[in-house]
């Protein structure tokens, strides 16, 4: 199951993942989120330079059936946006950890990263959710 939830990523309870590279993190949504949403038809993301606030909504994902909010895993400034998702939101369905990345954020306070789960913790969290 390690490929479903790569070991080098960190995870949130809202089913986002973060790839940490120094002060810059890359953010997307997890395989679990993608499978829950089904076919994704539209993504609304912030613009470069916008400030995100940890746990606040920073965008939305629309699938055929539903709309879901995206929650910022950390506070910080958006330094890059995966613009091709505007025309090709299906990249998220096809490859949520690579081509389907959403934004890169410059972390304001690296302590925010400590609150994120590792792959093992996230999978345990998913199991716990499932049993509820």
């Amino acid at each position, binding site marked *: 199951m390690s490929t479903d939830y790569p070991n080098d990523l960190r995870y949130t309870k809202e089913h986002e993942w973060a790839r940490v590279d120094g002060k810059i993190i890359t953010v997307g949504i997890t395989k679990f989120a993608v499978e829950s949403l089904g076919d994704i038809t539209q993504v609304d993301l912030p613009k470069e330079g916008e400030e995100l606030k940890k746990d606040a909504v920073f965008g939305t994902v629309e699938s*055929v059936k539903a709309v879901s909010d995206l929650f910022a895993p950390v506070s910080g400034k958006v330094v890059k946006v995966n613009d091709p998702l505007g025309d090709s939101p299906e990249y998220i369905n096809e490859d949520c950890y690579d081509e389907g990345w959403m934004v890169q954020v410059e972390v304001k306070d690296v302590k925010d990263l400590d609150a994120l789960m590792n792959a093992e913790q996230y999978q345990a969290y998913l199991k716990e959710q499932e049993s509820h």
Partner: protein
Amino acid sequence: MKQTPLYGRHQALGAKIIDFGGWAMPVQYSGILDEHKTVRQAAGIFDVSHMGEVWFRGPRAAEAVQKLVTNDVGKLVDGGAMYSCACRPTGGIVDDLIVYRTDGQSYLIVVNASNVDKDFGWFREQAGALCDIINMSDETGLLAVQGPNAVALVQSISDRPVEDLKSFTYREATIGGVKTQVARTGYTGEDGFELFTPANETAKQWDALLDAGAKFGLKPIGLGARDTLRLEAKLSLYGNDLDEEHTPHEAGLSWVVKGKGFIGEAALQKQKAEGLPRKLVGFVMKERGTARHGYPIVDGGKPVGVVTSGSLGPTVGVNIGLGYVPPALAQPGTRLQIDCRGKSAAAEVVQGAFYKRHS
């Protein structure tokens, strides 16, 4: 949750199962967009066994049915079917349904799954003195086979011709070894059949259709694609677009208000004479945004109506929807704003179905 006779089949196929009006139903198998495309381009099979089947039998069966439905039951011939509404005395829609006539003393009304108990109670209360009214929903299985290849597929495992059936007619045939009432009806905007079978034989027919269907490009289709298919064809969904707060006239269904002496007739006549307070319209999104059930429709900064259905139209390639608006805003070409979770997005009223099949 209640299960159809095919529940095990859906699980084995890896379908995602959801609670739909108390029924454990497949919402998708391969994915909504893929399934949608399959029905538009080849053929799809749907388990709709959760729908309700109520029989009316006896010398006064026709009278009983006419009392309950808005369309003109007298126009039905043996082997014929018609779409209709059933209304409260207020004109509010109890359900939308299809009436099938076996003969003058035997009618079948097929109703929405989530309304079976309500409808059956209402029918018995209002017309139970006129004839026998029997709820056969649990004993009846129903499959829909829809798409450009659907007719050839069903014909290929039928013991007699069914491809010559006209729209909204039905006939008995043996399909995949199962005695079936074969109806040329559907809910997708495509050609095809709906197949009524004894519930204990529905799985056998499902297997036969999937086997024979391989060379017709057949795939199982869930409720998710059923919803996008019907929305593109501008077919209303009870509980979304239709309910007891709205009349057939408001819902654009005046064409099924042709009967005489049905419950709600006076209220509907009065409403027609006085003018409609609102109308159900189709709209296409002109700005980025997906309309969803319950989103406000806004004009000049004020809420004027509400979205009843909305989604991407996978075949038409744009975001589409239905909603109730005042008659003054119902003209094709009218610009509306949809409040998509606080973000306003422009939409334009359009006439007719979003998708129409060729031929």
